[in-house]
């Protein structure tokens, strides 16, 4: 299971070093110095023996080795990243944890790639219900501000959800209100609506949740694909609290048609009573 300290370690180790001179830059600088020195003092290299004709070939071979080594390293890291994201998508959490541990152990040069990897690690932490650890990752990404705008939006949404779980309700509500007031395109709006619905269900504001249930349902359907199942599950909880069992049953059926009941409850423990009260869709494959 991921801990706050473990996550902190990976955040630090994945941070790119601020050094200006590294790798190929040093090699190029060295080559330029060598060239300059030879021009300034032609006697630097002995006139006789194999060195005068061997040196250029050595430099050339050295450069080729450097380029090949760098591109191989880059290819390996990009394969590791692809494997890690695939594991997250397929919810193979153990594999994802091992891959992200390996990936984030050394610096990641590109800020968006690092942010995406840290978001992947946060997803792994949330699958373990280690919300303090995931919150630490979100805080770090918000402080560093090196992620792209869509990643930062995702971070804010996930951060608010994590804060609701860790009992920082006032901060979470303030953040959710701020996100709700923003003008967002459909897919991002759907994420915020799902979060808002979660807040309403957690805090027992069932009436608010069912007031715009149909609009939300359509938004989830349009933009969340299979994850709309989580939205339908939360809507079922809202209808159940508002004493509308028929609509709650309909939403629970749709939710379980997309996501198995165990997964729904694993992600939102608030749905456990709903699972016991309503009939899930039958999986016929």
């Amino acid at each position: 299971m991921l801990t706050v300290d473990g996550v902190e370690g990976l955040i630090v180790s994945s941070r790119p070093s601020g050094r200006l001179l590294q790798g190929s830059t040093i090699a190029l600088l060295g080559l330029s110095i060598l060239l300059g020195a030879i021009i300034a003092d032609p006697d630097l290299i002995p006139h006789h023996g194999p060195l005068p004709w061997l040196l250029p070939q050595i430099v050339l071979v050295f450069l080729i080795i450097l380029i090949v080594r760098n591109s191989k390293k880059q290819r390996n890291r990009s394969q590791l990243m692809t494997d890690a994201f695939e594991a997250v998508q397929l919810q193979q959490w153990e594999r994802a944890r091992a891959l992200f541990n390996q990936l984030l152990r050394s610096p990641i040069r590109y800020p968006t790639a690092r942010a995406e990897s840290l978001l992947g690690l946060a997803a792994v932490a949330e699958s373990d219900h280690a919300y303090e650890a995931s919150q630490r990752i979100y805080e770090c990404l918000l402080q560093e501000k090196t992620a792209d705008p869509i990643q930062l939006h995702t971070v804010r949404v996930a951060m608010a959800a994590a804060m609701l779980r860790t009992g920082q309700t006032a901060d979470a509500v303030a953040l959710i209100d701020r996100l709700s007031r923003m003008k967002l395109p459909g897919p991002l709006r759907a994420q915020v609506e799902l979060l808002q619905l979660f807040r309403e269900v957690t805090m027992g504001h069932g009436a608010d949740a069912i007031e715009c249930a149909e609009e939300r349902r359509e938004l989830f359907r349009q933009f969340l694909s299979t994850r709309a199942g989580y939205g339908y599950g939360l809507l079922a909880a809202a209808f159940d609290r508002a004493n509308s069992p028929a609509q709650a049953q309909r939403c629970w059926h749709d939710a379980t048609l997309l996501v198995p009941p165990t997964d729904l409850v694993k992600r939102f423990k608030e749905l456990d009573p709903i699972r016991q009260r309503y009939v899930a869709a039958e999986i016929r494959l």
Partner: protein
Amino acid sequence: MNPSSLDLLLRRFRRHMVGIRAARIVLILVVFPCAVASVTLPELLNRRGLFLLIAAGIALWIFLLAKSFQAARQVQTGSALLSIGQLNNAETWLRRAIEHFSLSTQSKIVACQHLAVLFFQRDAHQEVVLICRELLRSHIKGLRHIWVNVRLLLADSLLMLDKVAEAYEVILPVYNIPLNLADRMKLLPVRLRCELATDQTAGSVEELCEKVQIAELLDAPRAALVHALLAEACRRQSMPAQQAFLAERARLYHDLDRLVDRYPIIAPVAYSNYPPTPE
């Protein structure tokens, strides 16, 4: 872009690709023998020659790097505009990237691939076929990810043009190589459409759970399409329970009435208001 200007652009792309490859070979054939030959020159000439060679090499390298960087930026801008649906602006940038001088074949190939995606979004499938065929002629198998994408795009467009046999032929080599998840997600709907169009539905219903798992990762319209295609395959294979389940799921993802205009093959599933109840 009219057909003649596309034809012109593709001809230019072909010329550039041949030119770039020839220039690379010439560079290697010139630089290495020069480096080796310089040692046979008298001492002073040797040093000067070597210095000139290295200085010219570095200058050329910086120039080509700047050109490649510029081309990559043009492709990046075109791709960003494409992703937000500004197709006309994206086309201008991608054209620029293809016409631009650089020794980077990759940026030209990627620009061409994005141009094919752009025409696909405009439903100009004849143009997509032309571009993809040109790309496949350009020996892009080394760039496997692009090679797979181009084949999938070409097969998709051929299916839209009802050229099923050609589509099947195009997609066949992709079956035989290990694919990553993203490519498997793109392959699944195309493969199912090919199989249904050629009535090879026994293959479509194999490993159903795995296929559904991949479909769940797609965006809503494509997830609906894959579910509807699988439901249709189950209907043809007389698997009513699975058919009903998949059709119900498909409807939950997206409106099938809207999909059926584009993919008439799912009509039996889309228009069956009352899916058969399992026996």
